């Protein structure tokens, strides 16, 4: 599913965010990317989301070389990706329902299908009773559940999550991870970047430890 072939990413003054990185993530895998701040976890996710391209090497996802995609192909590619961020990135002037429905809406999906999918995912994350609430009225855990609902509403092939539990306490973090496990159980590839080693231990999945842009440990 995801092939990272000798990928390097350098920023200004030749600073390496990723250095000669190679890894393989199969279809339906659940992989943690871990390591200290500045290790390159978020950079790798940025590349996978095609918000940036590698300075060297190739990033192949679903058989497509991400660096060679045209703007329209990037759009099509992103439709197969769900993303979750530490800061949730919810739209503050929209209700939960509108936040989640926003994705199918801007992808041109018909109103009835939009509604059906949105209800389904909000029910799945356990927030169907708070659909008319605004993000500011929710706890951090609830906001992250909305972000997860939004990430899966389009039924993506891959979920990318960047420090999704960074703002949550350990119990809520595990709750969020359980949602990711359930998503993964349905066949979706899940890649989660986190520096929380204890959480990784509790979830018990494959992890890749990065440091200074290189993989230093594979478990």
């Amino acid at each position, binding site marked *: 599913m995801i092939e990272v072939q000798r990928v390097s990413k350098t920023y200004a003054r030749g600073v390496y965010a990723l250095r000669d990185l190679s890894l393989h993530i199969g279809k339906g895998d659940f992989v943690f990317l871990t390591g200290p701040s500045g290790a390159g976890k978020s950079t790798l996710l940025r590349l996978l*989301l095609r*918000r940036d391209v590698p300075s060297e090497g190739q990033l192949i996802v679903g058989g497509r070389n991400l660096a060679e995609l045209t*703007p*329209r192909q*990037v*759009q*099509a*590619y*992103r*439709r197969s*990706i769900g*993303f979750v961020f530490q800061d949730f*990135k919810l*739209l*503050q002037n929209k209700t939960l329902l509108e936040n989640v429905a*926003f*994705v199918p*809406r*801007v*992808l*041109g999906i*018909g*109103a009835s299908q939009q509604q059906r999918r949105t209800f389904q995912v909000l029910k799945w994350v356990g927030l169907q009773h708070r659909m008319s609430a605004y993000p500011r009225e929710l706890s951090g855990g609830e906001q992250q559940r909305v972000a997860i609902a939004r990430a899966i509403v*389009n039924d993506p092939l891959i979920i990318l999550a960047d420090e999704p539990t960074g703002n949550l306490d350990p119990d809520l973090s595990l709750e969020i991870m359980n949602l990711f496990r359930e998503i993964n159980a349905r066949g979706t590839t899940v890649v989660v970047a986190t520096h929380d080693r204890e959480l990784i231990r509790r979830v018990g999945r494959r992890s890749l430890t990065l440091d200074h842009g290189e993989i230093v440990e594979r478990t």
Partner: protein
Amino acid sequence: MHALRYFFSEAAASLMRGPLATALAIVTIATGLFVLGVFLVVNANFQRVIDRWSRSAELSVYLHDNVTPEQLTAIDELTGSSGLAAHREYVSKEQALARFKTDFPDLAGTAGTLENNPFPASFDVQLKPDLRESTAAVDGLVSALTSMAGVADVRYDREWLTRLNTLVRTGRIGATGIVLLLAVAAAMTVGNVVRLTAAARRDEIEIMQLVGAPFAYVRGPFVAEGILQGGIGAIVALIALTVAFYFVRTKFDTLTFLALPMAVILLFGGILLGCLGGYVVARRVR
């Protein structure tokens, strides 16, 4: 259809979020179109008057009182065979007096006290519109008519009509310049308002980009916003123009309003201006 509904609902919501900026853009467009509308109304009325004057005796061939029927026929044949006349009409002395009384009712009494009718009979010749500019041909006809027996004088209105036309044309160029400037100002105002909207919606735009929304969905609402601003501005301008027109018409009752096609052009002009302003901003959003 779904896309259009999305564009316009987002655009309408966005306009509501910044009512002051929206009002500013609408007023700017309305001002530009109002000036354009005034210019069109004035121009249409001027043109109508000039056309009417042009249609009336452009070439008047005044006749001696003792003109013979043979001389009349010769004069008529010459104007007819010149190929320049669209219409020619013989006006007798009595008709000329009656026309004077109609045109100048205040002086009608004075004319009635005269012993003899002082107005000469004439041939009023209306030139073909496409041949009005053929100066040499018209001058040739005037000169031929002047030398004919029975002709007292030939009066040709071309020169002052030409001067009037030049004046109107110059005014038209000046007004076009002003309208163009206002149109650019209006499009730029719409662009700036839409840019403010884009800044306010940057979170939404980021989400749209991340989920792979088509460019049309990312950019469409901005273009729709420009269209709404332009359309509303045009409607405001048309309403203001109508009110101003009816106010002015109480003093000049022969004035006519914009023809329907021109009003429609004005409306679509506003929509186009707004669309342009919105599109300029939208195409920068990737």
